[in-house]
């Protein structure tokens, strides 16, 4: 009896961690775009949704397996992001009163546009992304580890590592970090903040869309799932604290675990209510992020 409960607990935690990896992948670029553009992008969940549909399309339209199509997904959405970013930048730096709130409203409009368009185009039927490249389940000591989830987790770790490599070992990465900390100083040092914002936003959109494909292989989705993933990304970034890459890692895994534990031990119906409730509490206790001090990257 004790063994069974222990096994369930371990399985639940591992399931949570595996999903948490994907939350890290959708939040890490988002966190940085937030830092550099100084705008909370309310469209983050829509990039996940659009990416997932691109996964469906790759198979249906081009006959390419979605996993093999991931690099193309990155390029396509990076391009879109590169085109959208200057508009956000323009609103954010405009001389109108309260540009921060207007920029918020702007990304909100983009999100609604994306959602409405996709709802009109594909309707309300739930979809999944089908792949043949990854299948089966790995069994270790009675634990079930579906290869798809492992692959998703691996992707998340890999892209996070690449992203951190970019941030810490390239010149552009240094400029990004400088800008995220202090925009005025960055521009005084000769950094083209506008161009940099576009680059960061492009990478972020591309990464998030790729994560969307992988999420689509695990969970079914409709054109309406965007806001839910937006809130999950907010959760991670709020908990991590603005601009903290290490914090995103911990917060993303924590969120995955929290969700899995609540689903198993309290009930799936309460998952979102509890996640949103916890997010609300985190905001109240520490709007700067609870992990910021300990893990500031």
């Amino acid at each position: 009896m004790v063994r069974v409960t222990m096994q369930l607990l371990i399985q639940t935690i591992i399931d949570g961690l595996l999903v948490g990896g994907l939350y890290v992948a959708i939040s890490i670029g988002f966190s940085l775009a937030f830092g550099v553009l100084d705008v909370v992008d309310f469209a983050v969940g829509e990039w996940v949704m659009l990416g997932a549909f691109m996964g469906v399309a790759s198979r249906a339209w081009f006959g390419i397996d979605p996993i093999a199509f991931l690099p193309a997904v990155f390029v396509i959405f990076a391009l879109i992001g590169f085109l959208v970013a200057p508009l956000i930048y323009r609103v954010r730096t405009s001389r109108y009163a309260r540009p921060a709130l207007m920029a918020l409203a702007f990304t909100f409009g983009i999100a609604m546009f994306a959602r409405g368009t996709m709802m009109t185009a594909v309707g309300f039927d739930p979809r999944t992304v089908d792949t043949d490249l990854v299948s089966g389940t790995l069994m270790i000591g009675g634990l079930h580890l579906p290869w798809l989830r492992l692959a998703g987790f691996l992707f998340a770790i890999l892209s996070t590592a690449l992203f951190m490599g970019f941030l810490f070992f390239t010149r552009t990465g240094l400029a990004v970090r400088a800008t995220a900390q202090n925009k005025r100083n960055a521009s005084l040092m000769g950094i083209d903040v506008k161009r940099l914002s576009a680059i960061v936003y492009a990478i972020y959109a591309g990464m998030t869309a790729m994560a969307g494909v992988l999420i689509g292989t695990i969970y079914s989705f409709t054109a309406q799932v965007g806001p839910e993933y937006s809130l999950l990304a907010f959760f991670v970034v709020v908990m991590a604290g603005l601009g903290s890459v290490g914090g995103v890692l911990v917060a993303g895994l924590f969120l995955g675990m929290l969700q899995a534990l609540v689903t198993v031990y309290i009930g799936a119906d309460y998952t979102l209510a509890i996640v949103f409730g916890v997010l609300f509490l985190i905001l109240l206790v520490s709007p700067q992020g609870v992990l910021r001090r300990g893990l500031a990257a």
Partner: protein
Amino acid sequence: MRAGGANSARLTARSVIPLVVVVVFLATLPLWVDDYWVRVWTGVAMWAGLAASWNIIGGYAGYISFGHVAFFGIGAYATAILMQPGLDWNFFLTLPVGAVVAGVFAFIVGWPTLRLRGAYFAIATWALAEALAQLVNTVDFTGGSFGLSTPGNAETGFFYYAMLIASALIYLIIFAVFERSRFGYKVKAVRDNEAAAQSLGINTTSVKLQAFVMSAALPAVLGGINAYWITFINPQSVLAGDITDQMVVMALVGGLGHLWGPAIGATVLYLSSTWLNAHFGSSTGYIAMIGALLALIVLFLPDGLVGLMPRARNMRLVRQMLRLPDRRADPGPDPDTSRERS
């Protein structure tokens, strides 16, 4: 974004005449249009009231609330629950109850959340509304995801006038409080510069909280009327995020922080959505449309549609198109107070 100051709200002959025309039009509407159009205009009245209520916290106080549907839903559930068989409350008596519950709820959550700035406040209110919707979905006394029915009432005209009068009262309250009393100055001062407002003796925490509570209590009344009107409510219909979306978009499209902005935005958008529904039979296209419209308004017309009115105080759009220099762009000291009169 501009404040609807004393200027825009001053009752002159020029503004009284259109007002009288609108009032007569709305008051006599059921006499000369069919049921379908009465229902459409009931919707217009409701959304105008909702967007105007949202405008209190979003436009006048400068806090973007993405969770306002919670207050609408609280009102709806208050009415529906109190009218259940066994309780059988009178419909009109349920409305103030909903408003009070929503107001108390706003007071409790507003006190900590209003310390949060900008996007964090938006996220917190959104999370709260989503959590509430999930909770209502699972507990019993709200009927869970199945929802609740209210006693049927088929009189279209009754709901039209109920909604119209409620929204008109909301408008009157907003006009009196924000355009005609010193409380309006306090709220706008806090919005524009909190530190300066404090240095002038304004208790900013209390002012923000009062505005938030007002902004929450008013939509609850409309939620209650709506629950009675549509005779059946569930979390998908009265706690859905897109209700908040519409309040935000209508206020922004009409003109944030302007008295008439929300009414204009609500009328234009609700009529367009009705038109789209009638001609294409889908409401999803509407979401795409208002999303695109919102983005375009923010980019090109931040003052909203009221910014197009001939007497708009500062013609920002025109200035922008003509690339007129903005004085604030030049941080250096100005040698003189005289300025070119435009």
